[in-house]
């Protein structure tokens, strides 16, 4: 019998884990990362529930990792301007995986949402387990950040 103290009562069910892994695999961050490894990494992620209108993070907050929308919708705003309306499968806040920078925008749940936190600490531990795949992931992360920068520059140039 499992020990009550040590057993994980929040353990994610297999189907949910599979859903989370599928959503992450569809993002550029997990491009060319094998499904089994993605699932192993996803088993360490943290699912949080948010009420409609609840703040996910605010500009200037210290960020601990990237966030994936599992269910619901999230609005991202900066300086009173809406930058994005995110839904299931979208991710945001990935700068925190790369650098200890503060959050650059406000994120608010616009409906009852479930968000998956992928913490920098979990990424670092995973890289220790899987250095080669970790290097591949970091290349994907660099590409994603470069793409965001390119889009931001384009937005500024268009104005």
């Amino acid at each position, binding site marked *: 019998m499992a020990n009550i*103290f*040590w057993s*994980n*009562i*929040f353990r994610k069910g297999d189907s949910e884990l599979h859903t989370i892994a599928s959503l992450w695999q569809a993002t550029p961050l997990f491009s060319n990362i094998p499904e089994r490894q993605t699932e192993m990494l996803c088993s*360490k992620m*943290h699912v*949080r529930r*948010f009420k409609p209108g*609840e*703040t*996910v*993070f*605010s*500009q*200037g*907050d*210290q*960020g*601990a*990792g990237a966030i994936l929308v599992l269910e619901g919708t999230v609005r991202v705003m900066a300086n009173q301007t809406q930058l994005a309306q995110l839904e299931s499968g979208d991710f945001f806040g990935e700068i925190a995986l790369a650098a200890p920078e*503060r959050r650059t925008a406000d994120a608010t749940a616009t409906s009852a949402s479930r968000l998956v*936190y992928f*913490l*920098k*600490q979990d990424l670092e531990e995973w890289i*220790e*387990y*899987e250095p080669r795949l970790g290097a591949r992931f970091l290349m994907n992360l660099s590409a994603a950040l470069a793409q965001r920068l390119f889009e931001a520059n384009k937005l500024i140039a268009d104005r």
Partner: protein
Amino acid sequence: MSWEKSPHIQTFKLFAIVVAVCLSSFYLISSVLVPVVISFTLYALFEPATLYLVRHNFNHSLSIMIMLVFLLIVSVLIIGFALPALFDQVTLLQSKLPQIAKQLEKLLTGYGEFLANEFGANVDISELTLSILSESSSLGQSALIKVSNSLLNFVIFFILVPFLTYYLLKDFKRARNDLMNWLPNSSFELGWLIYHNVSRQLNAYTRGVMLQSLIMAVFCSLGFSLIGLDIPVLLGAITGMLNLVPYVGPVISVILALLVGAAMTPFEPSVLYLAVAVIIAAQIFDNLVVIPAVVAHAVDLHPVQAILGIIIFGSLFGTVGVILAMPAIAAGKIVISNIYADMANASLKSVA
């Protein structure tokens, strides 16, 4: 902005809660604090090796068992070979206590005569000597009793520590995640950041000081052997352990080495100077080579903070508190700076 909303006050309130929870937890587990601390230390030491084995396709449970078997072999070797030698040296020290007392009396009488002849100072050395002798005798006896009790406790811990270490290696991260899930959404990321920073610093500190103690113990044991001081291995081991207590530890090491040197027959004053030279050389080596290489900036504390922390933690939790003072204060500094940064940001936003 009212003073209650000031980030300083908010930080202080939150930090006071964190400290109260930590101190209450320490108090609740005070009877098993030593095995818990040892188990966490072993966890910090063995976790990288366990991860290494897992990375090389070993099953997680098997990797932990390999680590525990390694721990068992090292423990058996220590008990089989090192402990009898240490017991002999403790017995030797016990038999030398009367000689140490006599030598101390002789030294003090000599200094009394010197003071009387040179400066005309009339110091009642005999009374002072009697008082020191009775104090040192009772201290020596109580120290020996404590050593015996510690050895008995060690046998009990020999069962408890591997048990706790096994479960820490196996389930600590899962239990930690469960605990962190209780944080509200607003503090979730901040909580993880603080945990991450504190655990990284504590892991680095634990691994660093264990290696530092070992190096100091070997250095001093060799040095004491070379100068012909009695019980070199025991003294070296004690000096290595005392090195865990900054500033105060090396001073106690010098006093111990001087007492043992003073009890040697025939008495050779040169051994005393050489013993002090060994400890000073060890400290120089420690500060110039060992600390920059293995402890680095794991704990960056002002000497006044360190001394005050040692005194306060020592009075609260005894010997264990003295050893835990430095990492606990360093962890406290990280917690308070992270909470303050968050509160200051929240305060700025509310003003805007």
